């Protein structure tokens, strides 16, 4: 009797056992190294938590309140916002131009695509060392050429008003190829018959771009811009390497400030609060972007 029911249940039961065994390694790893840290991050942010100390006083929302009154936090937030507002639109527009012009398969387009994709596969920190050198007023090539032409070279990274601009230009350099690749993938999925039909209806190149191409790649544009915004809000590598947040905190961003508080000052609780502020910002901006696109859908 029992053997019959056991046999009947055999299939689902083995799948449950197999399912749990297959999931086990990832479940343990995600539990210990993702979910527990997320919860712990929230817990830490509610404490006066210094890394080296063994006891941590519960302070409730004190870290978050301190954040609201911390001019260095607002400065970092402002720099991050300027960086994002400057890079993302340029990245999307240039990425779209490149995608439209380079999406057809020819020898020169595939060469160009590789060129624009190369920064994406290179280490940003390592290439930021190269950029720092390229932009250097002493030994950099551009400064030498300017001097050769009798012009006083600009020390980009040490001039308070220009350093963030340099960080933005280098950020664009790294990420245009990323946007381009996503948009090319989307463009190649647009059926050629749609364009032909539009031509037969008398649409010019601009009309085709506006009424066929753009609507067809809307989803890809949305995702490219959401990812570009998220990545911009998390800007870190080139700032750390090229300016360290200076001069005069003019390039300090949310993540470099978090790094400084968490791993420079070892104020884990305060750094966790900065991380949650970043999370909140990302959530709000992403939701806003999704809303704009959805609203236009109804049109």
């Amino acid at each position, binding site marked *: 009797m029992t053997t019959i029911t056991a046999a009947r249940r055999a299939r689902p039961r*083995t*799948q*449950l056992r*197999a*399912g749990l065994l*297959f999931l086990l*390694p*990832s479940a343990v*790893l*995600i539990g210990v*190294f993702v979910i*527990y*840290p*997320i919860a*712990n*991050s929230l817990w*830490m942010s509610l404490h006066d938590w210094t*890394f080296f100390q063994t006891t941590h006083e519960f302070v409730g929302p004190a870290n978050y309140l301190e954040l609201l009154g911390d001019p260095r936090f607002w400065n970092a937030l402002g720099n991050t916002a300027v960086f994002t507002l400057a890079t993302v639109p340029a990245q999307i527009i240039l990425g779209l*131009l*490149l995608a439209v012009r380079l999406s057809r398969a020819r020898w020169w387009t595939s060469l160009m695509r*590789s*060129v*624009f994709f*190369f*920064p994406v596969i*290179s*280490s*940003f*920190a*390592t*290439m930021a*060392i*190269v*950029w720092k*050198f390229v932009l250097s007023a*002493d*030994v950099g*090539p551009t400064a030498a050429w300017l001097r050769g032409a009798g012009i006083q070279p600009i020390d980009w990274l040490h001039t308070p008003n220009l350093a963030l601009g340099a960080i933005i230009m280098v950020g664009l*350099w790294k990420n245009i190829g*990323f946007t381009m690749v*996503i948009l090319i993938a989307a463009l190649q999925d647009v059926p*050629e018959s749609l364009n032909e039909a539009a*031509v037969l209806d008398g649409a*010019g*190149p601009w009309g085709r771009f506006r009424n066929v191409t753009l609507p067809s790649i809307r989803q*890809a544009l949305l995702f490219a811009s959401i*990812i570009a915004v*998220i990545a911009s809000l998390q800007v*870190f*590598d080139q700032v*750390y390497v090229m300016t360290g947040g200076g001069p005069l905190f003019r390039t300090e961003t949310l*993540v470099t400030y*978090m790094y400084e508080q968490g*791993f420079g000052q070892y104020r*884990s609780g305060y*750094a*966790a609060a900065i*991380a949650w502020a*970043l*999370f909140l910002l990302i959530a709000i901006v992403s939701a806003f972007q999704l809303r704009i696109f959805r609203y236009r859908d109804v049109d």
Partner: protein
Amino acid sequence: MSTSTLPLYLRAERSPSRRILSAVGTFVIVLAALYVIFPFVWMLLTSFRTQEEIFSAPGNLIPATFNVANYLKIWTELPFARLFLNSVVFAGGVTILSVFFDSLAAYALARLDFPGKTIAFFIVLATLMVPYQITLVPLFQTVFDLHWLDTYQGLIVPRATSAFGIFLLRQFFMSVPRDLDAAARIDGASEFRIYWSVMLPLARPALATLAVFHFMNNWNDFLWPLVVTSSDTMRTIPAGLTLFSGQYVIDHGVLMAGATISLLPLAIAFFFAQRYFVQGIATTGIK
């Protein structure tokens, strides 16, 4: 661009104003391409120049002589062999473990039927939404509590699975026809055997895409190795080059040689397997 290569229905509309607009577009692209390629060209050419030449003629693009001394100095002036080894162990270790564990979990979520599966998949998706900076500070604490700071396991184990990888492979496994594993199941094959001998061989392109994605991200990663490692002997290339260039006086040419070498493995892989790089990136857009 010659007109004859365009589709037939587009040939009619090459008016002069269109040609000018098109030329402007091409000009912008060429300008942007020069901007993008310049740091790489500068890095490569400067890696062949002596420190004296860099200071005396900083504007010279082409080295006076192609001098390979910097490529020899990098191994003695810096513990570069060690940095390189650390990068290989870190990026290679994460890639092997993560592709294996990701594919196991993805197989369960795509092909097996058991209670709680939907919740498990939902949790995977939810962790994808959380920026990784949220976990950085507490992870540092966890790795410290495990006494894993400044060790390979501290670098590798927290990254030995990824929600993105599970998601990517699950989508691929879902698209494989059910008949294949049903046949194997009737023959009495175990689930692990079906996963190993039926699923994985079919999934080779997806596995290669994910492997390239993991290797590239970790080979290039800066923040995580910067946080977890502290000794000169445990740094990876990006963190090591950055910190050494700040702490010691190192010839610019030597640094550029190091940067060039660190780019080589990915550049070579990109040359031979470009589509896996592009697919990995394009998929992040679809997620």
